[in-house]
């Protein structure tokens, strides 16, 4: 059977990382936590929970951590790679569903969408921000996805080898869509349920960060 690796980027997530790692280990052969220069005990806790840990010496942002995660997963011999958030908002069974979708063989890249089945308790402001993200992603990269900002995604080894992540921060989610379009990868979406807690809400993109993300996306589009 294929080797499945789940990548979890984490920045100061000592409160939730152990549970995230243990959950991910139920549905993957290996869990790679990329500690993005945390100042807390994220690395130690992730390692003692059973994850392989790659530690950034300095904080590089979500995009930087995901890029490291993909490169690391490839080095660890992954056949299928999924990414999940460290804050507990993604359920392991949803990661499994995304990976299974790849095993079916008709997709190279899978996005776990919070919108296909409107379950879970996504707050209105999140929903609005997500719609804006989707619209901007569509305008820039000509591909409509129902949840362009989702942190749960999965890809085959061949896809991960071709995808080049250049953005450092939150704009990485849309950059994945861009890469899927540019590299002509087959995209599929699977429904997932996001679990919003006060903790995970405090960790996501604020309105201001969202604006910065949008600005960066436009800038990169113009310059690259």
């Amino acid at each position, binding site marked *: 059977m294929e080797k499945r690796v789940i990548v979890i980027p984490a920045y100061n997530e000592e409160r939730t990382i152990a549970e995230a790692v243990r959950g991910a280990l139920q549905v993957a052969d*290996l869990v790679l936590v990329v500690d993005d220069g945390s100042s807390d005990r994220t690395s130690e806790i992730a390692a003692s929970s059973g994850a392989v840990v790659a*530690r*950034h*010496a300095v904080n590089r942002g979500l995009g*930087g951590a995901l890029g*490291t995660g993909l490169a*690391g997963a490839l*080095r660890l*011999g992954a056949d299928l790679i999924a990414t999940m958030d460290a804050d507990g908002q993604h359920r392991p069974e949803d990661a499994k569903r995304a990976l299974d979708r790849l095993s079916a063989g008709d997709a190279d890249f899978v996005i776990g969408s919070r919108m296909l089945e409107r379950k879970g308790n996504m707050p209105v402001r999140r929903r609005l921000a997500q719609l804006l993200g989707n619209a901007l992603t569509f305008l820039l990269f000509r591909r409509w996805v129902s949840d362009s900002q989702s942190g749960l995604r999965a890809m085959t080894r061949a896809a991960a080898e071709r995808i080049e992540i250049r953005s*450092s921060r939150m704009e990485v989610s849309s950059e994945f869509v861009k890469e899927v379009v540019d590299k002509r990868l087959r995209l599929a979406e699977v429904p997932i349920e996001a679990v919003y807690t006060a903790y995970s809400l405090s960790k996501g993109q604020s309105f201001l960060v969202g604006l910065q993300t949008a600005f960066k996306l436009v800038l990169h589009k113009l310059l690259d």
Partner: protein
Amino acid sequence: MNAIQLVLVVFSCFGFGAAVARFRRGRLSRAQLLIWSLLWAGIVAVVLRPETASFLARRLGVGRGADVVVYLAVAALFYLQFRLFSRLEDHERQITALTRELALKDIKEPPHGR
């Protein structure tokens, strides 16, 4: 010479001096030194004899000499801003690449498997 002229000329001399110093340390090429020298010389010329700018303005079809100076300055600032931004992005990417290599240098699968 009035006060503003004096201030600007002194400032330009400092700018020229800094360019020469960088050239001596091998940080500027001969061509770059020439460009900076021309720039500072041009500024001094316009400061001491504002009618030079008026002449340029008429040639370029802009009303006043002072306007030409402002337009050119804004264009130059935009250009420098753009270069600075590109440089910064390059550096960001290089730091990320470096951080990545260090982080992945000795990751390996735990011997006990899952």
